[in-house]
């Protein structure tokens, strides 16, 4: 009854699309309006933290090599760190604005984990391509969130932040267990 890996990726993709929509809505209405109801303020950090928690069973049940397992644990810890720090900031338990830097840190570490653990080139298979694309998207997201830290009211950086999550969602929805990418699939990856 264990879901296939691609199905798990699609479920995480749904979470990222939902997060992206929330962040986009927050950008449109402004943070003051978005936080008029406290549950909304907790929504994106809470979902990010939950996705980090759910990444642990993925690490336990789906990884077939040490480097793959380490990458998944890095993503789990990154999402939990960013989500928890944001929850603390929203709640008021954390007051130092430097805690905001946990988001770019999490994205940078996650992007590095994507790029380091994927040892095949871009067109080796669909999964390899998506790992590279996700890694570079996360690194771009780290730069965008650094910009957002420097200029918290910038609509450009806010939209960019939401777009990073929507892009994560789209890329995760593109994942298949074994599939070619732009017509390429290495025989080592399962091509017949």
């Amino acid at each position, binding site marked *: 009854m264990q879901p296939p890996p691609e199905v798990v990726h*699609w479920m995480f993709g749904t979470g990222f*699309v939902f997060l992206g*929509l*929330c962040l986009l*809505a927050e950008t449109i209405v402004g943070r003051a309006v978005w936080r008029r109801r406290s549950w*909304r303020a907790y*929504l994106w950090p809470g979902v990010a933290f939950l996705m980090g928690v759910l990444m642990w069973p993925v690490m336990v049940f789906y990884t077939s090599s040490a480097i793959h397992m380490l990458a998944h644990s890095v993503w789990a810890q990154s999402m939990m760190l960013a989500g928890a720090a944001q929850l603390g900031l929203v709640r008021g338990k954390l007051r130092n604005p430097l805690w905001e830097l946990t988001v770019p840190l999490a994205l940078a570490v996650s992007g590095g984990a994507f790029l380091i653990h994927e040892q095949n080139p871009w067109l080796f298979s669909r999964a390899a391509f998506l790992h590279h694309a996700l890694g570079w998207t996360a690194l771009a997201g780290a730069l965008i969130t650094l910009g957002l830290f420097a200029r918290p009211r910038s609509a450009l950086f806010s939209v960019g932040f939401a777009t990073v999550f929507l892009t994560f*969602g789209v890329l995760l929805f593109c994942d298949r267990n074994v599939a070619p990418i732009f017509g390429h699939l290495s025989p080592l990856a399962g091509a017949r």
Partner: protein
Amino acid sequence: MRIDAELVREGAPARARQSRRHTAVSALGPLTALAGLVWALLQPYRVTLLEPNAHSFWYLAIQPPLLVILAGAVFHFWVVPGLLTDLEQAEQEET
């Protein structure tokens, strides 16, 4: 009377800007659901319910185009109504 007219003139652009925010937030969920629908039309084989006997449980339970529609619907029906109410209140307070 002249003061009222000036207030109306000054308030009109603000209301137009605010209504654009209202429209934009209202459109996010339906546009997402539309994207899922277009995906389902472009790749009907991803909608496994069309062939229920050919797939196992997980592929019937989790179908990407339907998940996109679901994400848009949950956002639209759960998050947006309260957000629009708060936005309207904020706009009234601004004016």
